[in-house]
């Protein structure tokens, strides 16, 4: 240990204060952590409803400030390296603030993936620093070493995995990139070797040369795991990475004797777990199927068989006439709406229809978009009141009383094959039953398949009209056509 902590008597004081991490720290640190833990739980509790949600953010912020101030006080005046922590906090704020202020809402999935990468990076770095500070000492006994190894494993794989997810969402890497041949074999070998390193280090904590190997293997596994996954599976992958990042933060708390970290990490981890389960259920797939399965569209009828001569296309004027005097319209948004940045144009259409006495609601499928809740945020951004955004189970029974369902940029989540064809890759996936509406208008640029790569019989149904156009332009044209006809 070098003499980073200056005066000898203070050094001894801090040694006793931090000897077992924060467990033996001054009373005010304990209190600040206790308060922070309580505020974090309240923060999530208040998030349950949009009315109290912003109070939840305040609670989280206060908890964060309390815990950071408590920690800084403990080292203030006794540590000569504390200034680097201040520099780090300033730099982090300088990076974080622009990412929050100028990030367009359509880029929220990318930002979320990036933030999982940062969180996991912090866990991996702290774990690595702790290992090289203390390997061989009594602080790194076998059980601590096991936990530290898993922390670094999870942190590293989540770091690269989230970076790959970010690159795919930002379209730096093509979303539909194919995996390598024997991808699963490679993945399992990498994971197996990394776990082998964890076991090795647990048995021989002083074998410091194994540690870099563990990190490299985990980093490589993260890349290989997420690389072949894309598109509609992104919500599940992001949720799962969220869970891993939380878990690694929690394990860091185990290693550093910091109960606040254990609590906050566990809350984050359980949130990611719940969201992953919801996403998997909404696609009727298992974790293993999302992570290691490959979509196989070969067993499904070809596009020509499904569509041959049965697709009816419509113009903006046709749709405007159709919408004249109807009682109820349901709009079904999908990822295509986000890509076309059409949410504001959709708002204009819905307001115009409402001003003419039509009831308008929105049907939100759990996996519509690229992350959980993606569509809700975009529609809220466009100033659409949240009580009009309906979940799948709430809106499905109402399609039968709906005059027109407008599908914009959604495909697989409205594909009736999920109910009718047990051999299709989306078999059993709960869908929005738009076909029950009297007329369905599908806004889409072409008949190209969605992520599952299968044709959609809905497009050829008797009560379906295809409106071939870019989502945003379609909405603008439609609004103009309705106004003209009036």
């Amino acid at each position: 240990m070098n003499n980073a902590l200056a005066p000898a008597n203070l050094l001894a004081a801090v040694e006793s204060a931090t000897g077992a991490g924060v467990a033996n720290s001054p009373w005010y640190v304990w209190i600040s952590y206790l308060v922070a833990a309580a505020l974090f739980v309240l923060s999530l509790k208040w998030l349950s409803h949009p009315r109290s949600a912003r109070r939840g953010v305040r609670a989280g912020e206060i908890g964060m400030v309390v815990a950071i101030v408590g920690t800084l006080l403990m080292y203030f005046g006794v540590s000569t390296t504390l200034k680097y922590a201040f520099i780090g906090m300033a730099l982090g704020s300088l990076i974080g603030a622009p990412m929050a202020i100028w990030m367009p809402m359509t880029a929220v999935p990318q930002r979320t993936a990036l933030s999982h990468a940062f969180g996991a990076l912090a866990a991996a770095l702290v774990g690595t620093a702790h290992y090289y500070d203390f390997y061989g000492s009594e602080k790194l006994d076998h059980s601590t070493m096991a936990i530290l190894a898993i922390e670094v494993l999870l942190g590293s794989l989540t770091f690269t995995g989230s970076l790959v997810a970010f690159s795919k969402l930002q379209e730096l890497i093509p979303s539909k990139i194919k995996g390598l041949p024997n991808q699963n074999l490679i993945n399992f070998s990498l994971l197996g070797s990394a776990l082998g390193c964890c076991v090795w280090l647990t048995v021989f904590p002083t074998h410091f040369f194994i540690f870099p190997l563990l990190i490299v293997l985990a980093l490589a596994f993260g890349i290989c795991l997420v690389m072949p996954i894309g598109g509609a599976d992104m919500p599940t992958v992001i949720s799962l990475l969220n869970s891993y990042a939380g878990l690694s933060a929690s394990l860091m708390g185990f290693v550093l004797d910091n109960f606040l970290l254990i609590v906050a990490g566990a809350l984050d981890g359980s949130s990611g777990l719940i969201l992953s389960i919801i996403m998997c259920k909404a696609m009727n797939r298992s974790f293993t199927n999302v992570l290691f399965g490959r979509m196989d569209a070969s067993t499904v009828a070809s596009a020509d068989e499904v569509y041959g001569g049965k697709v009816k296309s419509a113009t903006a004027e046709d749709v405007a006439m159709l919408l004249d005097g109807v009682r109820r319209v349901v709009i079904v948004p999908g990822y295509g709406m986000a890509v076309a940045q059409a949410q504001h144009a959709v708002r204009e259409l819905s307001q115009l229809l409402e001003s003419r006495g039509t009831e308008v609601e929105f049907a939100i499928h759990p996996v519509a978009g690229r992350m959980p809740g993606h569509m809700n945020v975009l529609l809220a951004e466009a100033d659409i009141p949240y009580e009009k955004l309906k979940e799948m189970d709430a809106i499905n029974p109402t399609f039968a009383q709906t005059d027109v369902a407008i599908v914009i940029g959604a495909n697989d989540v409205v594909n009736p094959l999920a109910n009718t064809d047990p051999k299709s890759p989306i078999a059993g996936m709960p869908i929005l039953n738009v076909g029950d509406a009297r007329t369905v208008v599908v806004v889409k640029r072409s008949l190209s398949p969605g992520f599952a790569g299968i044709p959609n019989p809905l497009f050829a149904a008797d009560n379906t009209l295809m409106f071939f156009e870019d989502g945003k332009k379609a909405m603008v044209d439609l609004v103009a056509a309705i106004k003209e006809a009036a």
Partner: protein
Amino acid sequence: MTDLDAKLFVFLLSTFLGLEVIRRVSPLLHTPLMSLTNAISAIAVVAAIQVTAEGHSTFSTVLGTLAVIAAMTNIVGGFWITDRMLKMFRRGGDRS
């Protein structure tokens, strides 16, 4: 490491508490939920500060500082964008 049993206890209870609390969050708010939990778990910054401030070696000070930067980015960015999103969720009657 001290008190492995106490830590497992706290971990288990926090996980159950998290599952119960988060199950009640409306699907409407799942995106802000993810960014808020992410910001909260960036409390890892206190561990990063600890590693940096104890400064056992230049190596761990450098890693600690990098970890402080990464965690602080998530704190500032995470809370801020969560609030930005939540501000947009309005009821029809609230429209000005």
